[in-house]
């Protein structure tokens, strides 16, 4: 029991439908080979363009761990809890849209937030809503963790300064500049990253 398919009929139908198409659409269906002259010219153009960049490099990336892009002060990076300032109101836990913040009890039986960096989406609702500004914010966004469990902070880790573990510590900060010929280029600001 099989379905009989008339392949010849189908292929005929397809070819007639392609022939009835408008000429500007037809070229998508037809296999065209460019003639020799233009294709040779195009190949040579492509190769010379490539050679131009090999001879005269024009890099648009930065040498990352040694150079970092300078972030604006309002950039939403990793933050830490100032435990003495916090009043334990739980507003950050309530507003957190991704359920990353959780309240725990500290040794003095007071409520304090801890964060799961694996869930955090860096929306900064918690920082905004905090009535006593108990979060110390940084512009660090490129922290790496060895294990998933490391992203689950406890109270002690959440109060540590993330600047101490900054992976691009000591890197040169770069600023974006617009150049008339090359477009956007990076220029060093002269300031080193990290270390306060």
């Amino acid at each position, binding site marked *: 029991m099989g379905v009989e398919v008339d392949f010849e009929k189908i292929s005929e139908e397809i070819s007639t439908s392609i022939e009835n198409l408008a000429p500007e659409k037809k070229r998508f269906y037809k296999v065209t080979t460019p003639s020799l002259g233009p294709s040779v010219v195009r190949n040579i153009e492509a*190769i010379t*363009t490539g050679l131009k*960049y*090999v001879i005269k*490099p*024009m*890099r*648009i*990336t930065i*040498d990352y761990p040694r150079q970092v892009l300078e972030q604006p002060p309002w950039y939403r990076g990793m933050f830490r809890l100032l435990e003495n300032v916090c009043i334990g109101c739980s507003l950050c836990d309530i507003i957190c849209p991704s359920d990353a913040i959780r309240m725990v009890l500290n040794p003095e039986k007071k409520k304090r937030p801890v964060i799961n960096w694996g869930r955090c989406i860096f929306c900064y609702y918690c920082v905004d809503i905090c009535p006593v500004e108990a979060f110390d914010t940084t512009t660090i966004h490129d922290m790496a963790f060895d294990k998933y469990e490391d992203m689950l902070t406890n109270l002690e880790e959440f109060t540590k300064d993330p600047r101490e573990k900054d992976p691009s510590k000591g890197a040169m900060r770069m600023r974006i500049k617009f150049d008339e010929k090359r477009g956007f280029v990076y220029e060093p600001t002269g300031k080193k990253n990290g270390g306060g």
Partner: protein
Amino acid sequence: MIQEILLLKELLGNNEMIYRTVIGLGYMLIYPGLIMIVIAAALLLWAERKIVALVQLRYGPLWISRRIGGALQGFADLIRFSFQEVIIPRRSDVIPFLLSPGLAILFSVLPIAFMPVSPYIKPPIHSDIGLLAAIAVISVAPIFIVLMGWASDNKFAFVGSLREALLIVSYEIPFIISILSMGVMFGSLDFYEIVERQSLLPGMLLNPFAFLASFIAMLRVTSRFPFEISEAETEIVAGPYTEYSGLMFGLSMGLAYIKLYVYALMVSLVFLGGWLPIVSGEGVIGGFLIPSLIVILKLTVVSLVAVFLRAVYGRYRIDQAIRIGWIHVFALSIVSLVWSIILVYGGWVRWA
């Protein structure tokens, strides 16, 4: 080094057989054989990544050996591969799976035995059909690439090896025809005579059609862009090498570069005049080292152009590649053969 060779000659002076065996082993295993090929492949890997990065406006490998632009990246990769675990898939055909990368590399390196790099020290097998023999030996290597895909029992590996089989047939024939048309023109298949007869004009200018056809066919046979279809990373993971890991992956990935080295050596001997500014020399330095370095320089230029094309071209579809292979490159190789015959029978070239 030189003093040691001379000492060796003194010690074994009377025994020609042992002397030739030692020289032959050194030729095959050290220079310009296996160790030189591994060094060249590692540097070529770095050069390819660096050139492509430059064209794509990036930095390229820079983390290892920063002062020399990350040139030791290939060696670092090699060391990493050799300490990684080799995983053998449960459903694979174990013996062919383990043997085929090594055999493919063996048959890629073996043509060195026929190819001279200097007038003073002859290759281990000095034959008057050296060109034909070298092509014949290196044509065996793709069989083991097909075997890799078969033994892996992986659909990507199988598809990749089928693509390799399909395309190698379409491009090895033009390569063989175009490079043998040089043999027709020079009236010899001996590498020494071929190099000697280019003293006035390099073979590249005597028969430009053959050079173009064999260069394009070389790009496909060593799976360089725009013909890197059997290992198409975006389509079929790594083609025939998908299931390999650790050192086995290092071997199979280096295979393309090893083949590139050998093919570029062949092209630089046949088309670029080999060691030609130097006609003959005496002693180890003048007769072997300097001519061989000239050959290596020409080889490097050919392989750098071949790896540079990765930055310029995209990847052809299989049907496009086969059409180009059978219509254009094959026709070009036939034209080169006819051109050689015209040159020889028209009396334009005459060899003493």
